[in-house]
């Protein structure tokens, strides 16, 4: 273990802004992508459910 205290850990030898700036922005972007994916998923599912309920359903499934 390199750190004698939590405050020393957060201080990062004076590089706190650079180190935590890197880690925090990465964490925010990853969390943001997961949230965006979830909302896109919910919209897609809703759209598909509505299409099945009200829209046309055609049978040309098998062209790959």
């Amino acid at each position: 273990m390199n750190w004698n205290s939590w405050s020393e850990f957060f201080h990062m030898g004076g590089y706190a802004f650079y180190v935590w700036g890197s880690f925090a922005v990465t964490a925010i972007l990853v969390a943001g992508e997961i949230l965006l994916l979830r909302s896109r998923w919910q919209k897609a599912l809703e759209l598909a459910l509505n299409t099945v309920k009200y829209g046309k359903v055609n049978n040309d499934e098998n062209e790959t």
Partner: protein
Amino acid sequence: MINRFNKYKYSSPATFYGFAGRLIPWFYGAAALFCMAGLYIGLFLAPTDFQQSEAYRIIFIHVPASWMSMFIYVVMAFWAALGLAFNTRMSFMMASALAPTGAMLTFVALWTGALWGKPTWGAWWVWDARLTSELILFFLYLGFMALQAAIDDPRRADRAGALIALVGVVNVPIIYFSVRWWNTLHQGASVSMTKSPSMASIMLLGMLVMALAAWMYTIAAALSRARCIILERERNSQWVAQMLEAEA
């Protein structure tokens, strides 16, 4: 040879959809575990660097993100090529599913690079070969996504996007070898096949575990996005109707 392998089975969106749905939680779980282990090694076990003090710890984000930014582009170009060659819908959908995650990780590589450059080189940004080619990679991802979004017909959007992906892939070896071909401020490769590692093995371990976390996360995110794209595009097809009715 290729005919014996039933490519239609696995390249069919209906099969892929169910298969991906079962895999996604495992990849997210693995990503979380590797990330926790990697951060513990990187932030608590790895010693202070004798030259850069604690600033070097940015490496645990920067290098995995940079590797993935290049690798995802190559995989995207591979799917694009497969789509153009065999005209498989699923290949194009995979290429589109990878792009936003690739763009995000390219941004992370550039961002953490800037935050690392300032304390070690004294500059947030320099127009050096490595940095400039990585910036071009970021614009290639954005260009791919913008082009696909701008074309209404998904088939034409797929083909136009695939062209950008294929042309842009020449940039990836340029990024990778830029530190050798040109005299740059950026340091050389952190890990090389031919030389013994230039860093302490615990630092290397932390970096590799974080790279695994980035891999697992990328797979999970790309599969999730591919499932969204399938549902958006195939919502008129019989199998989607059957599946949704079976689930309801």
